[in-house]
Every structure is written in structure tokens, then in C-alpha cells.
């Protein structure tokens, strides 16, 4: 990728994403830019690894599965990476299939358009392209693809909750719901709204996965169609693969990563055994501490708020609206969301299933699968109960969204999740578009890629659930 600095300055046909601009800027300062690793389904995971992880018979199984649930019947990069966990993939695909294809409150083209809107919020060109393609196949209302301004008012109204859910879901209130449901001509029925909300949450979370796993853009054979041309070929080549591992040498070497793993397992064991009684006050402050700390966990490099220019931006309005920390210091703290007051199992499910029948079961199965998914091993060690680790990951994500579990000791998070992992989690769940290969590489160096994909799955589902909980709680408030 030898783009000369001059070509950046001149209005070239290539659109350069934020990341690249930075890289290029650094290059100007005379640094070496490594060639991104772009072959294969993921930019983070060597293609070899994915192929090895899926033996031939499993591969055919995957194909069958995908054939059942997708229109093309082909494995795309996303399903290939997710295929590292076939058990999960099945429930994922079934749910997505139900959301997009089975009879529901919204017409098909609306569903894909909402998917595009949701993915565009995170500038996830992979998903946007995928659904632009699907939208083209339906062949209705093609002018909408020219941008959000060409879509009907009804869809544009959805943009408000799209951006809130994508970046600061805790801000959603019943007034937002009311605005959508009671606007006369362009109003949404509750059933449609729930469908839309589930779609939004699904694709926001999926964008997290796409970025977190560094999914490479599809190289589409039939680039003949207009939109593909625009979106793929004109898109910044680097996409996700670029990484600022310019400072690679600065990172600690592999030597201590072994001891890192040992230490983690040690801590898990200790936590499991110890009957240490933390005082009530301490338990209460631990959540706050974790919440506060998540503030500090930032990827530093991105202090500047450059709004990226990419051609998915035509599906985005108010692009400046981005993530803000839930716990901002010096401001009135927003009330913590008590998981016991509104939980997925008790409340979310009933509501969502009532308004959009059977989706509850699909989501339920997906959440259940992901929370129970385990292979009883960690890196090279086998026969390990990872429940604690999985729960720490899940609850940490919810913690960043301000959702608190009374029965969880947030001290565990601190013990189990190292800082580099926290950085990764925060980036992937809150502003996935900023994920870099370096972040992905720098945590859990001993672990297999499939395990890191497992982490991504957990993050994705935790995020989706958090968004859904906030949205559904707002809908409940609206209804009562």
C-alpha cells in the first residue's frame, strides 16, 4: 500500500478512512508502514488457522447450515470466522434468518435498509455492502440507496434511536418511543418498532464482531453492479487490516505472556476457592470503581474527533454523535440500570415475544448458547471451568453500559481482565470502528484465535443484550 502523501492531498478517487489518514500522517513523519494482512476472511487471523480449525466434514456441515439460512448459500467471511464456533453459528444464523426473511411486521426491504442504517453508524462497510447487495436483490425503492435523505420519513425518524442505541443506549427514554409511535402519518406500530429495534441492536452488535475479528471485505465476483463498484472498489483498501503496529517493537515480548496465562489461571482458581467476604460497602463501591475505571481505559490515540469520510456516511445523519462514557466524571451520574429490575429472562423476553412473536425464543436461544458455550480449555490447558471468565467478560460489557448485577462481585473483573483486554473490550463494544490489529494481538497472547473469536462473540451478545434491555425498558415505560 504505497500511497504517496501527495495523493492524499489531492482529491483522489480513493476514500481514505480515518485510520489510514493517521497511518499516512505518521508515514509522513518518516515511519515504515507494514503491509496489511488482507487475504483470507479475517485480517487478524491467518487464513490457515481458520481452515485448519474447520475440518472437511465440519466444513460441509457449515455449508449446509449456511445454505439453510442464507440467500446465497455461500460462506462469506463472517460466517467463516464465526464458523469456528459452529454451535453458536447455527443459532446466530437461525436468528438472523428469522429477522430478515421470515414473515414479520416489517417488509423485507425495510429490514435490509435498517440493517444498513445500523451498520453505517459504525462505518462498517462490510455489513453495509452486504445489505446493499441484498437490498438490490429485492429491487424495490432503489433510490433509497442514494442515502438517508432519499428514504421515507418513517425510516428517517428511526435514525434518532439508531444513533442513541448505537452509541449511548442509556439515553433512550420513553419519549423517544412516543415520538416514533405517535407521529400520525409516519408512525410506527409497536410491533414494527420492536422488529426495528431488534434489527438495530443485532447489527450494531454484529458490527462490533466484524471489527473485533477484523473481517475482511468480500471480494465479490459480480462487481458488475453499480453499488458494488462504489462501495467496494472505492473504499479504502486498508479497511481494518491496517494497524498501527508501528510501535510493535515497544510491545512486551512473548516471554512474559506464558506467565501471564499462568497468572490468570491462578487468579481464577483463587477466586473459585476463596470464601473471602467483602463488606457490603466494598461490594457496592467495586462496581463504581470498575465503571470509573472504564473511563480511563481508552485507546488514547484517538483523542481527535475526526469524522471519518467514507461512502457509508450517506446512510448516517448526525455523524458527530458518538460514544460518550456512561460514567462521566464531574457530571450528574445517570442512574444505574439494575439488572434485577429489568432482566432479559423475566421482562425483555416477554415484551419482545409479545410484540414480535417467536423472536424472543430465537434471541433467548442465542443468548443461552453464547453464555453456555465452552470447550473447557484455556489456551494450552484443558479441563478448565471458564464460567467465571465468561461471566466477567459479559458483565464488564454491561458495566460499561451502566447495567449492574447485584449478585456480582465486580472485583472479579479487575482480577481476571487485564488492561489490554479491557482496552480491546471497550473499543470493540463502544466504538468498534477504531479497533486495530494491535489491540487484538496485544491481549491474551497465548490464546488461540478461536478463543479470541469466542471473546468477540461474548462481547457481541453482551452488547446486543444491553442495547435491547435499554430499548425494551423504554418501550415498557411507554406502554405503562
Amino acid at each position, binding site marked *: 500500500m504505497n500511497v504517496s502523501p501527495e495523493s492524499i492531498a489531492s482529491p483522489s478517487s480513493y476514500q481514505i478512512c480515518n485510520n489510514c489518514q493517521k497511518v499516512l500522517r505518521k508515514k509522513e513523519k518518516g515511519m515504515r508502514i507494514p503491509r496489511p494482512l488482507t487475504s483470507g476472511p479475517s485480517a487478524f487471523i491467518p487464513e490457515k488457522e481458520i481452515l485448519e480449525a474447520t475440518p472437511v466434514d465440519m466444513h460441509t456441515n457449515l455449508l449446509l447450515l449456511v445454505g439453510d439460512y442464507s440467500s446465497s*448459500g455461500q460462506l462469506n467471511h463472517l460466517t467463516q470466522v464465526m464458523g469456528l464456533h459452529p454451535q453458536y453459528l447455527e443459532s446466530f444464523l437461525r436468528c438472523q434468518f428469522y429477522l430478515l426473511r421470515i414473515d414479520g411486521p416489517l417488509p*423485507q426491504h425495510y429490514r435490509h435498509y435498517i440493517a444498513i442504517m445500523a451498520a453505517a453508524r459504525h462505518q462498517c462497510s462490510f455489513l453495509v455492502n452486504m445489505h446493499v447487495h441484498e437490498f438490490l436483490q429485492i429491487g*424495490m425503492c432503489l433510490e433509497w440507496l442514494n442515502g438517508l435523505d432519499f428514504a421515507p420519513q418513517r425510516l428517517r425518524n428511526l435514525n434518532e434511536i439508531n444513533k442513541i442505541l448505537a452509541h449511548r443506549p442509556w439515553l433512550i427514554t420513553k419519549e423517544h418511543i412516543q415520538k416514533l409511535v405517535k407521529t400520525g402519518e409516519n408512525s410506527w406500530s409497536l410491533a414494527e418498532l420492536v422488529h426495528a429495534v431488534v434489527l438495530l441492536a443485532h447489527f450494531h452488535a454484529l458490527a462490533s464482531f466484524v471489527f473485533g475479528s477484523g473481517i475482511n471485505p468480500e471480494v465479490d465476483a459480480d462487481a458488475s453492479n453499480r453499488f458494488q463498484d462504489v462501495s467496494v472498489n472505492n473504499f479504502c483498501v486498508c479497511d481494518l487490516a491496517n494497524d498501527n503496529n508501528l510501535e510493535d517493537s515497544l510491545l512486551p515480548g512473548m516471554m512474559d505472556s506464558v506467565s501471564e496465562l499462568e497468572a490468570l489461571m491462578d487468579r481464577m482458581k483463587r477466586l473459585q476457592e476463596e470464601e473471602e467476604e467483602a463488606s457490603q460497602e466494598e461490594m457496592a463501591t467495586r462496581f463504581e470503581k470498575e465503571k470509573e475505571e472504564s473511563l480511563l481505559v481508552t485507546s488514547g490515540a484517538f483523542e481527535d474527533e475526526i469524522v471519518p469520510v467514507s461512502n457509508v456516511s450517506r446512510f448516517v445523519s448526525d455523524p458527530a454523535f458518538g460514544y460518550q462514557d456512561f460514567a462521566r466524571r464531574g457530571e450528574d451520574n445517570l442512574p444505574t440500570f439494575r439488572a*434485577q429490575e429489568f432482566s432479559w429472562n423475566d421482562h425483555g423476553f416477554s415484551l419482545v415475544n409479545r410484540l414480535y412473536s417467536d423472536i424472543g425464543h430465537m434471541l433467548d436461544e442465542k443468548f443461552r448458547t453464547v453464555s453456555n458455550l465452552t470447550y473447557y480449555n484455556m489456551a494450552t490447558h484443558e479441563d478448565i471451568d471458564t464460567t467465571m471468565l465468561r461471566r466477567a467478560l459479559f458483565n464488564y460489557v454491561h458495566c460499561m453500559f451502566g447495567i449492574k448485577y*447485584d*449478585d456480582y462481585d465486580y472485583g472479579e473483573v479487575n482480577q481476571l481482565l487485564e488492561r489490554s483486554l479491557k482496552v480491546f473490550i471497550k473499543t470493540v463494544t463502544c466504538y468498534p470502528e477504531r479497533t486495530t490489529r494491535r489491540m487484538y494481538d496485544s491481549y491474551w497472547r497465548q490464546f488461540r484465535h478461536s478463543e479470541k473469536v469466542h471473546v468477540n462473540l461474548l462481547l457481541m451478545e453482551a452488547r446486543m443484550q444491553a442495547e435491547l434491555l435499554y430499548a425494551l425498558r423504554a418501550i415498557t415505560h411507554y406502554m405503562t
Partner: protein
Amino acid sequence: MVKLLLAHQKAKAVGPQDSEDQATRGHSYQCSLQQKMEKMARVTTALGSNTISGCTMFCHLDAPANAISVCRDAAQVVVAGRNIFKIYALEEEQFVEKLNLRVGRKPSLNFSCADVMWHQMDENLLATAATNGAVVTWNLGKPSRNKQDQLFTEHKRTVNKVCFHPTEVYMLLSGSQDGYMKCFDLRKKGSASTFSGQSESVRDVQFSIRDYFTFAASFENGNVQLWDIRRPDRYERMFTAHNGPVFCCDWHPEDRGWLATGGRDKMVKVWDITTNRAKEIHCVQTIASVARVKWRPERKYHLATCSMMVDHNIYVWDVRRPFIPFATFEEHKDVTTGIVWRHLHDPGFLLSGSKDSTLYQHKFKDASRPVDKANPEGLCFGLFGDLAFAAKESLISGGGDSNRKPYGGGGDRRYPIFFFKKPDLTEQFAHVSSALSVFETDLESSRMDWFVKTARRYLLSGKPFGELCDHNAKVAKELNRPQVATTWTMLRIMYSDPGSLTTATGISKGGSIPLMNSFNMKEIAAGGLGSEGRLDRAKGETRQDSTHLDPGNSLLNNNDENEETEGSEGPADYLFGDAELEDDDLYPMENENATAEEAEYILPQEAFPLRHEIMDNPSVPEHLQDKVDSPHVSGNEAETVCLTPIKSFSLISISQPLYESHLPASFFSPVVREMLQHYAEAGDVQMAVSVLIVLGDRIRKEVDEVTQEHWYTSYIDLLQRFKLWNVSNEVIKLSTSSAINCLNQTSTTLHINCSNCKRPMSNKGWICDRCHQCASICAVCHHVVKGLFVWCQGCSHGGHLEHIMNWLKSSSHCPAGCGHLCEYT
């Protein structure tokens, strides 16, 4: 003739029997422990029954309640929630706050209660389950302000439920999210035994009221387990009660074999567990997930439920009448979180706490009875005009008899009584006896035959507009519907005018009609530039050509049509095109060239709007119709519509009476719109939709989308009821509304299983991915059938449709050689 048929169902109305006391009925018990329990129960009865009185009342709490529980003597109630833990005394007309158990400046999470229970033996003893996993007991007898007694922090996750043993003072059971149940001995520091459900989170635990050692636990995965308290190693019994979490369970206070469970699947089920396998004996379907269920004291079949989401009411059900609640309490403004009957032996008072921060006492007498409000009348139309009507017998027998009698003769046929329920005296349900009448109709007017026939025979596309109208008019006429027939003919005249060239004189009248203004201007302009005008005309032709092709195309490809209609075909365009075409100066020239250009003149008549006003003059249409029809038909003989002869004809003979006015097609749009609305309102949505389709763009923009969609859906619904699938499909295809169009694109998957391995075939229809066998092989040519596969239902052999057809022409035996005599119909 109208036949009247009657079926009677009689039952005696039974009123509520609130005074009956069933508690002291004799029961025989096998073990002495149970006798002891029974004694206890009697003692409490004696204590309480005299003192309970009160009214429906409520008080505001400071915070939402999660659970409530009453003291044994029914004089006090404890309310627990995340931010509240208080005891209220129940007085005659109000709640009085007695005690706030939430003490300390910064209350810990141990005070954040998910559940609370008051011991039924010791009125000083309370237990709470905290959301952080702690189980706390409280001793009200303590002199200090802090009444907290013991704290157990053995559970790792939220404790969902605590339950005291009904007779044993020191035994406390808890069920937690972590999947464990623990039994605590309050004399010891820790748990006496731990029960592992080996499945998911525990939602509810309940000691059996009658069996000393038994308790039931309900789980998030839908299971219910029965345990013996002495055997912590494994459950006695397990059964799957619900689909999804079982939120609650409750033992029947009288019948020791009965357990009621409520789940997220919106069901309440009553199980008989005395048999080998737990048997579901009653099932009530509610409208929301069931959060709590409580048997009503003294009423064997009654239970109260409340919901976790959406629905705020409390229902009392008679499990034998699962379709309508026996009583409803509608006071709460947010979901009810806790319900409890005030006294163990008094069915008259129910207490409830809610998320809306109120605590209610409901007096049963004040409950609303949905049965009273329910409408026992039902009315339903059959597809072919029959009418069934069920109503309270009293209503019908009152005034109805005299009316009924006259029809009671000859052809009257009594329907068999198809439901009859023996009245059960113990059932306190208002019995409704109703009479069912079925009216059959022979009247031609209410028969729906015309609908079916019309739907089948109408042509909606595939021919030029005029022909479609004519055809449909003919169909209507044959079916004896003159008004509809006339409408079709009028439509044809309005929108396809062969006499369009008479516009020349329109100028004189043009000024009076606003629409004509722009038209005139253009006309003049075109007139001034004779030669250019001709070029324009050619342009107009091609454009209209494409219009003509439209209906045909749409059959093949909806999208094409969509694009086409989005394009330049608005009414304004028509006007423009007309202006050029109808140029007076051009006419002679056209006529001269007519023969030479004939090939190009396969223009549909529809392209030429009418220039005269018919609606003002009722006599004109008839006159016009006849005249226009005849030449038109002759013109059609060549299959293609040649315009020239019609033009010349209309110029000569027809145009004369029409000289008065010249109107563009759009002038009629409001009239036609009204006409469509009239038909739709009058119940003939068929006509409305058919016209809408046939007229296509001419009218589409006039009627708003929502109405169109509404018409389409109604018509499609009707068609499907009559099983006219093909017609309905055609209508869907031809509709221009995207919402209707996409009906055809949903549910298009056809799932097939492999004939070899019986597994679903996923990828391709003809080869199984799992057993790698070709699933469908033609018995004649032994090749794989990839398209239509026809098979004999007798021997299940088959193959290519064509091959089988040919084979069976020459042979009557199955081509596979199985010896079956296949039939092909």
C-alpha cells in the same frame, strides 16, 4: 327462504357461594405429622375467621414493591422491594405503617429484597431473599432498631425465593439464580443441606403444605422438581412443566396432589402429582407471562395470578373455566409483583403490592367480574351467506319466538346440540345458556356465487384497456349485474376515446374549464409549428406504446412495471401528449398518411382521453356506448387495434353530439374515485380493485396508498377464503402497491425431505447432501427430475410430468414395474 335452526344449551345459573366453609371437611391422613399440620390449620382458622373484615383500600409506598407477605393472624403485612422494607398493620379502613426495617444511613444490598416471607408459625420471624445472594432472617422481637437476625451468604447469585416450612419453626428454604436450593436450620450458622437442581436457575421453591418432607422447585429451563428434604443428593421426581422459565408454583392448600405452576409461556397449569407421571389436569392461558400464582383459600378450583410484564391486573381463575377470568382486580397502574391472600382460610381478601409503589387490599366482593361484561352473543357469516348467531337464551326466547315460528315449518332442520355441559353446582361461575341459530339463505342477492364467478372470469391484464373493459362488462352483464356492466362500459368510454380528435372545437369551451387552460396554450403552440408537431407526435406515440405494453409486462416482471410507473406517466404527461396529438392542423395530414403508417398505429385507444363530458348527461353514455362499441369491435377483428378507422369514424358520426365539451381523462378522476369508493363502501371491493388494476396509472395516483392497500388486502383475503388462489395471486402481482406486491415474496420456501434418508434437503431439490443420493428419479427415463415431479399416490412412483403423461397414454401400469395400476387425472 330463510331457514332458522336452533340449538339449545341450558344450564342452571349458579350464584357465588361465598359463605360455604370447606376447610373443616374431613380428610383422612396417613401419618401423624399431617394430622398435626391439620390441627395447626384449624387453630389458625379459629383465630382468624372472626376478626377479618375490611374494605378495598390502598396506601402509597415510597418505592416499588417486589414481594409481600402476611402475618399468620392476617393483621399485618410486610412489603419488601429494592428500596423498601416495611411492615404495615391492616386496619379496618386503612394501612398503618408499623415498622421500617430498612435502617442505617446507607442500606446495604442485603436490604434489596427479591422476596420476603413471614413465618406462619412464629409471628416475629421473617426471612428475605436479597438480590445480591444473601438470605436474611429478621426477628421482630429484638429490642434494637435493627431487627436483622441472621445472615446467610452462601448463594453466589440472586436468591429468587425463600420459603419457611409451614410447621417447622427453624426450617428455611431458599432458591437461587445459581441453581442451588439450600435448606437452613435457623439454630445453626449455615445451611443444613444443599440441593443442586443440576439445571438452570431456581425461580421458586415451595414446601408442600400437606407433606412434611416434600418441596417443589421450579426452574428457568421449564422444569419442576420435587424433592424430599431428607435426601439432598437427588430429586424425587422431575417433569417439564412449561416452555421457558417456570416463574412460580403453589401447592393446593387442600388437595395434596395438586400443584399449580405459572410460566413465561403465559400459562398456568395445574398438575396432579399423585400419579406416576405428573399429569396436567387444568391449563389456563393468560395474556402475559405469569409471575405469581396463589390458590384461593376455601375454593378448590380458584387461583389468583398476576403477570410480570405488560398486564397490570390480578386475575382470579376458576381452573375449570380457563377462557375467562372469574374475577379481576384492575387497581394497579404498573405490574403487580406480589399477591397474597390475607388469611389462610378467608377467600374474601387479597393483598397485592406493585411496581407502581402501592399496596392494595382487594375485597373480593368489589372485584370486577368479566363474565358479566362478556358478550355471550356471537355472530358469524359463513362464506356463502349463511349466518350463525348465538345469544343468551333469555334474549332469544323473549321477543324472538314469534319471529321464529313462521320459519319453523317445512324445510327447517334442527342442528344437533353439539355442546352440552352438565351444570356443576359447585362451580361458582355464572352459567350462560345460549341458543344458537343458523340462518341459511337461498336468496339470490346474498349468495356469493357472483363473486366467485366474477373473480374467475374477469380479465385484469394482458389485453388492451378497451378490450378488458368490454370483456368485464360482458361478464357482469351475463351475471346479471347491469350496474357493474354499465360502469365498465363507461370507464372504457372515459379513458379510451376514439373520438379524441374532436378536440379542435374544444377551444371555444376551454375557458370555462380550468383544466383546459394549459392545454389550450400548448395546443396553440403545437398548431403554430406544424411540422415540428408531427415529430412530437411520433415521440408521443413511442411513449404511449410503452404504456400499452405495461400491463403485459407486469405479468412477467413486477419490477419493470414499478420502474415504468415511477417514470414519466403522470396525468400531466397525458395532457401534454394529448395536446400534441389532437392538434387540429395535423389531422388531415395524419389521415393521408394513415395507410403508410398503419404499422405504427398499433396504439391502444387508451392513449386518447375523452374530450367530452358525459357525466352531465345521463343519456349520452348509453347512446355512446352502443355506437362506440360496434366500430370498436370491428376494429379489433384484426387483433391489433388500428386507430385510423376509428378516428375517421368518430369524426364522422360520433363526434357530433359531443361537441359540447372536451375534457382530459384526468377530469374524470374525481368521479371515478368516488365511484370506486362507493363500490368499496357498498361491499363490492372486488369491483374497486378490478377497476383499480384495469385503469392502472390512470387512477392510481388519485386514490391514496393506504386506501388502495386496504382494498387490495380485503379483496385478497376474500379471494383466499373462496380458495381462488390463482386469482388472488394475479391480483397481488398486478397491484402497484409495494406492500401488496411483497406478499408474493414472503413464505416462498418449500421444505422437502429426502426420500432416502428422510432428512431435510437443504441445497438443491433433487440431490440429498447427506446421503448423496438423487432423491427424485423419473421412473420412465431414470434421470433426475429437476422440475415438476408427478407421482402416483397409490404406489408413489413417478417422474417427469411429460414422461408420465406419455407413458400412461399407452400403458395403464406403473412405469416402475411395480404392477400398480396408476391413474393420471
